[in-house]
């Protein structure tokens, strides 16, 4: 494996310019950063969040009149998979206190708390229980657990990181509950990194004033997820998990309360009716929409389902226009595409270069600016490197690190990255990496209050599917904390509500009929069918040969 001969030939251009660039770096000189005006311009023209192109006004629903990325707008203006007139709502296939839609960290935390409060739970999940972005979170989880820290500073750091656009009530809830969440996880048996006396080991992160990042090896999310899932499995008498059964529509009752969902068995293509006193949406984010064609760090099922379901039931969203991109995702080798390469690589002195081995940007601009500059160089100026699988990337000259800081620095400072590339025949201490911006996180989502309640009685939401906690920019380690804090709050609240004597009346899909009528009246032509559930990665060639599909779609 390793680089192909063609790519190796191109690497020679990087090596040719390296001595002069190293000299420059040793003199403490660097490629000039952009002025504030230039920053604004490159963001405006090339950052997916700022570009006018690729966005449009949504014409229907609770966020009517607001601007969204096309891919998001298409889903907000989508029609249902379910034909309401064909659905028999007179009898439910399942009856429960709390229905949780989504089997990741937020959903599972909610399930455990709901059972603690005496509720019977059904958890419906699109893939397997635990298939979620939670599993992939490597970095850690924030909480003010140390004496020099407090929820006050957690609040302050989070607001500053979000450029003070965050919802204060949600941030206060996060900061308040964060240590409680860590204690809860410790109680469940999560193996946090600790000092020998039991003190939690903590680290700094971008934007922190106190060391607040807790971790479990370099797989914190996976450790949390597998412990929560194990506990849910121990409570199989109270938590029934329905895998490969995503919700495709919410159900209301005739009084307008949320009262269940239509589930779709992806293996048999049957639908089921779940009647539930309370419903929690915990379906995660939208990375797999590949907004503007970006690769993503997200898991296979991250397709914005919950936002779509809530939208048709009249529940709007906040900050959904805001997406977190990371400037340096892997572009080669294929098996690592989209995965993160930490900012630390550039922090240690690696230059970002085009196909000619030339620098074109200051390597440590703010993330959004850096992202825009890479996009401009590769796509507008045509100076990107095309890989054997047709991707475009730019060089990240990691061999500079050892040359600047001494042999062995890459191995010492970037052990996981070193191994990850070595596995595929690339020694990043000797050969540069190919990178391109990658879609990382859905900053916005369903509007909730600090109790994880939505505007629809009986409907709750938690995790990446909600918006407001991170404002327009999320700090590292706050996503794992947010799924636990708001997952716990949602589970407890939903169970209390379900046990408070709420009575479900006749079930209805009238909200779907009404929404689709609104689509028609707004002149939305050929709305797509959503939730899309899974991305389609078949090639144009294969799709072109699926002649039967055309026939079926025409009916």
């Amino acid at each position, binding site marked *: 494996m390793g680089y192909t001969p063609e790519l190796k030939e191109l690497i020679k251009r990087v090596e040719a310019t390296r001595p002069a660039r190293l000299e420059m770096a040793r003199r403490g000189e660097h490629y000039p950063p952009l002025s504030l005006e230039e920053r604004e311009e490159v963001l405006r023209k090339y950052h997916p969040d700022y570009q006018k192109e690729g966005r449009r006004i949504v014409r229907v629903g609770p966020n009517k009149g607001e601007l969204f990325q096309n891919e998001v707008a298409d889903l907000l203006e989508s029609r249902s998979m379910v034909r309401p007139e064909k659905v028999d709502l007179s009898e439910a296939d399942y009856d429960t206190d709390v229905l949780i839609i989504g089997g990741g960290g937020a959903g599972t935390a909610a399930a455990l708390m709901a059972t603690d409060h005496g509720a019977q739970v059904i958890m419906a999940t699109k893939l397997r229980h635990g298939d979620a972005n939670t599993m992939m979170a490597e970095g850690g989880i924030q909480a003010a657990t140390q004496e020099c820290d407090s929820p006050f500073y957690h609040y302050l750091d989070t607001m500053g990181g979000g450029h003070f656009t965050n919802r204060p009530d949600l941030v206060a809830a996060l900061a308040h509950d964060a240590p409680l969440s860590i204690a809860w996880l410790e109680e469940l048996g999560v193996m946090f990194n600790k000092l020998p006396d*039991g003190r939690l080991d903590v680290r700094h992160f971008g934007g922190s004033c106190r060391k607040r990042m807790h971790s479990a090896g370099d797989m914190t999310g996976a450790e949390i997820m597998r412990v929560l899932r194990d506990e849910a499995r121990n409570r199989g008498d109270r938590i029934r998990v329905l895998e490969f059964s995503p919700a495709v529509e919410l159900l209301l009752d005739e009084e307008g309360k949320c009262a269940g969902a239509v589930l779709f068995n992806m293996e048999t293509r049957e639908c089921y009716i779940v009647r539930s006193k309370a419903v929690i949406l915990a379906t995660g984010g939208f990375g797999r929409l590949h907004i503007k064609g970006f690769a993503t760090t997200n898991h296979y099922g991250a397709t914005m389902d919950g936002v779509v379901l809530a939208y048709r039931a009249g529940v709007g969203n906040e900050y959904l226009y805001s997406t977190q991109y990371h400037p340096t995702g892997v572009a080669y080798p294929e098996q690592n595409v989209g995965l993160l390469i930490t900012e630390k690589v550039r922090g240690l002195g690696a230059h970002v270069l085009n196909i000619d081995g030339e620098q074109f940007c200051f390597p440590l601009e703010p993330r959004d600016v850096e992202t825009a500059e890479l996009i401009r160089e590769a796509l507008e100026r045509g100076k990107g490197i095309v890989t054997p699988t047709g991707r475009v990337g730019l060089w990240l000259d990691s061999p500079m690190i050892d040359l600047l800081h001494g042999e062995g620095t890459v191995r010492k400072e970037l052990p996981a990255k070193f191994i990850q590339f070595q596995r595929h025949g690339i020694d990043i201490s000797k050969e540069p990496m190919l990178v391109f911006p990658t879609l990382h996180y859905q900053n916005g989502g369903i509007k909730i209050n600090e109790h994880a309640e939505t505007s629809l009685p009986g409907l709750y939401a938690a995790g990446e599917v909600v918006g407001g906690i991170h404002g327009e920019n999320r700090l590292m380690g706050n996503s794992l904390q947010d799924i636990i804090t708001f997952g716990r709050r949602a589970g407890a609240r939903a169970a209390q509500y379900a046990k408070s004597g709420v009575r479900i009346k006749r079930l209805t899909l009238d909200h779907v009929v009404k929404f689709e009528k609104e689509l028609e009246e707004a002149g939305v032509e050929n709305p797509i069918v959503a939730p899309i559930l899974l991305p389609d990665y*078949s*090639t144009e060639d294969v799709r072109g040969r699926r002649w039967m599909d055309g026939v079926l779609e025409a009916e």
Partner: protein
Amino acid sequence: MAEGRPMQAQQTQEMKVATGDRPILPEGARTVPIYIMGKRYEVPETLTIMKAMEYVGYKFVRGAGCRGGICGACSTVYRKAGDYKLHFGLACQTVVEPNMYLTQIPFYPANRAVYDIEEIEPTADSVYELYPELFRCVACNNCTKACPMGVEVLDYISALKQGDIARAAQLSFDCIQCGLCASRCMGELPQYHIAQLARRLYGKYIQPRAEHLKKRVEEILSGKYDAMLEEVQRMNREELEKLYEEREREPDLTPPGAWMPKDIRYL
């Protein structure tokens, strides 16, 4: 979006680039033959097994998860032409090789014992009681050979047989619960479930507890921070920015718990 929108290259340029997770074959790209469950397909070299299967038209329902090598959804067994040896890997992490014969094992049935984490004694006997099959292990080491994460499966099973829960917890930490170990086990052990039990016992009962965390929880529950958090929510942007600018930064090199800031009003 069942038709899969063809993601266009960005507005201003004509070069066709692959986007999302869908590869595009550039001109002159080499392909290799692979056999998916015995059936031959030509796929571009350098693709992973997962992307190669999608390239030829498979759409996964089972057998795909995080696509980053950590969730254990895409266990794959393969053999190479003319070679008796079985190889194991994750479809999202393993690159195709010419003439590989492969199949996925997206699920494997394995016995999982139910227990109450609050009631259980953190002893080896508890583990033996829940998983008596532990002693059916014949130390053949097939589990370790099958592990796509390089976990020393047999070593942690042996540690448990010797009653060392802490060692088993640490040795099994990188487990992604894909089930390949269990699929190859002569003794029919569910190694990954046993390891999960060991890790939870270790995390809850054996690893020392964080005393400072217990104290912080008490402070929060007593309402110590409620007024502070209310006050800070009422601040206008200017006041917040001022406080933000004035934050004291904990030094990088002091160990956790060793440093205190000058301003302790909000601690």
